[in-house]
C-alpha cells in the first residue's frame, strides 16, 4: 500500500523508477504504479529482507504461519457470510414487492366482488321496493336514481377518448425525466365539466359513473375517480341530447384538448354512440349532510331533483334519453 519513495525492494521492480542524483527513489505516479504493478510492494520488500538476512531455518516461523491460516479461515468466513447475506436480502426485496402487488390485486378483486354484490343487492332492493310501492311512486324513484347517478341508465350520447402521448425514444440524459406527456386529472375534470355544461345527463369515466359527490383527483401519477384508480386510455362517456357532440366540440375543454393534441401529442377523439349504458355509481355515504325533505314526497319532489342536478337540463319528467334505471 506504500506509495511514494520506497527502499529495499525497489530494484526488483522493472517499471518506471528512476534513481535521482541524491540516491532517492522516485516512483511513478499513483495510477501508473497501480496499473503497472498491482502487487503490494510489501511482498517484494519482505522477500528482499529475507534474502539479505535469511532466518536460520529458511522457513517462516510457526506463529506467523498460524496467524496466516487464521486469517484465511476468517476470509472464508467473510465470503460465506457476505454470500449468505446477499442471497438472503435479494428474495426479501422481491418478495416484499411481489407480496404488495399480490395484496393490491387481492384487495382490488375483493373490492370488485363487493361492488358487484352491492349492485346485485341494490337491484334486489329496487325490485322489492317496486313491489312494495305503487307504480307511479316506483317510476318516480327510478327516475330520481337515474338522475342522481345511483341507477343504471342508457341512451344515446358521446364518448370522449383521451390518451397519453405515445412513448417517445428517450434521448440520453434528458429523456429520463418525465416520460411522455400524460393526460392530467384536470383534463378529465374539464372534459367532464364541459360535458355536463353541454347538456349531458349522465357521465361516466372508464365505467365509473359520476355523481354529485364524485371526485376526480390525482394521487402521484395515478388518477382517481371516486377514489378508485383509472388508467389510460380514458373514455368519458356521456348521455345527452343530440346536439351534445356539437356543443361539447365548441367548449373550452375541447379547444384545450385539441391544442394539447397539436402541442404535446396527446390523443383526443369525440365520437357519437348510440344506446350506450352507463353503470350505477356506488351509493354515496353521507356522513354529515342529512336529508331535510318534508315527509310528503309530492311537495318536495321537483325541489329535490333540481338541487341534486346542478346541470342545466333538469327536466326530469320530459321524455329524456335517460329512461328509468336498471
Amino acid at each position, binding site marked *: *500500500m506504500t506509495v511514494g519513495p520506497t527502499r529495499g525492494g525497489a530494484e526488483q521492480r522493472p517499471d518506471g523508477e528512476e534513481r535521482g542524483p541524491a540516491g532517492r527513489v522516485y516512483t511513478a505516479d499513483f495510477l501508473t504504479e*497501480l*496499473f503497472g*504493478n*498491482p*502487487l*503490494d510492494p*510489501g*511482498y*517484494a*520488500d*519482505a*522477500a528482499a529482507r*529475507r534474502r539479505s538476512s535469511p532466518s536460520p531455518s529458511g522457513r*517462516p516461523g510457526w506463529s*506467523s*504461519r498460524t*496467524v*496466516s*491460516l487464521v*486469517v*484465511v*479461515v*476468517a*476470509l*472464508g*468466513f*467473510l*465470503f*460465506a*457470510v*457476505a454470500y*449468505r*447475506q*446477499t442471497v438472503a436480502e435479494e428474495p426479501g426485496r422481491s418478495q416484499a414487492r411481489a407480496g404488495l402487488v399480490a395484496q393490491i390485486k387481492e384487495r382490488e378483486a375483493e373490492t370488485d366482488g363487493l361492488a358487484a354484490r352491492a349492485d346485485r343487492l341494490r337491484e334486489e332492493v329496487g325490485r322489492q321496493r317496486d313491489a312494495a310501492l305503487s307504480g307511479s311512486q316506483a317510476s318516480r324513484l327510478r327516475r330520481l336514481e337515474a338522475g342522481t347517478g345511483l341507477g343504471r341508465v342508457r341512451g344515446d350520447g358521446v364518448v370522449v377518448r383521451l390518451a397519453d402521448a405515445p412513448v417517445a425514444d428517450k434521448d440520453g440524459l434528458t429523456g429520463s425525466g418525465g416520460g411522455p406527456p400524460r393526460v392530467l386529472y384536470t383534463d378529465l375534470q374539464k372534459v367532464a365539466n364541459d360535458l355536463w355544461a353541454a347538456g349531458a345527463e349522465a357521465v361516466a369515466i372508464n365505467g365509473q359513473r359520476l355523481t354529485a359527490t364524485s371526485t376526480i383527483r390525482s394521487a402521484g401519477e395515478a388518477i382517481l375517480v371516486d377514489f378508485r384508480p383509472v388508467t389510460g386510455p380514458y373514455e368519458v362517456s356521456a348521455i345527452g341530447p343530440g346536439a351534445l357532440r356539437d356543443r361539447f366540440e365548441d367548449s373550452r375543454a375541447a379547444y384545450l384538448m385539441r391544442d394539447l393534441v397539436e402541442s404535446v401529442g396527446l390523443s383526443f377523439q369525440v365520437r357519437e354512440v348510440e344506446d350506450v349504458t352507463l353503470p350505477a355509481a356506488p351509493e354515496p355515504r353521507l356522513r354529515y349532510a342529512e336529508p331535510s325533505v318534508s315527509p310528503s314526497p309530492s311537495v318536495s319532489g321537483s325541489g329535490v331533483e333540481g338541487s341534486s342536478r346542478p346541470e342545466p337540463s333538469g327536466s326530469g319528467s320530459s321524455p329524456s334519453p335517460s329512461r328509468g334505471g336498471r
Partner: protein
Amino acid sequence: MIAVLALLAGVVLGVYLDPTVPAALQPYLPIAVVAALDAVFGGVRAKLDRIFDDKQFVVSFISNVLVAGLIVYLGDQLGVGGQLSTGVVVVLGVRIFGNVAAIRRHLFRA
C-alpha cells in the same frame, strides 16, 4: 493446499454458524469482501512469485478491510454516499485484475 483447506473450513464455518450481520455493519460487508479478495489475489500472486510473506499477507488483509470500511464510513459521514466506495472498488478492482493477470501468466505462461 493447507490454505485452500483453511478457506474451505472458513466457508463451512460461515455456512454452519450462519451469523446475522448487524444492520450497522451491512453496508461495509460488500466492500470488505472486495478488499479481502484483493488481499487473497495479492497473496496468491506473491506465492507464485515465490515472495509470499505471512506477515505481509496478514497485515495487508486486515489493513485493506479496515481502510476500505473506513473510507465507506467516511463517505457516509461526508454525504458523498456511494461515490467514495466506488473509488475503493475501482482501485481494488484494478489491483485484483492486475494480480489475476499475473497469476494467469504464471499458470498458463500466456
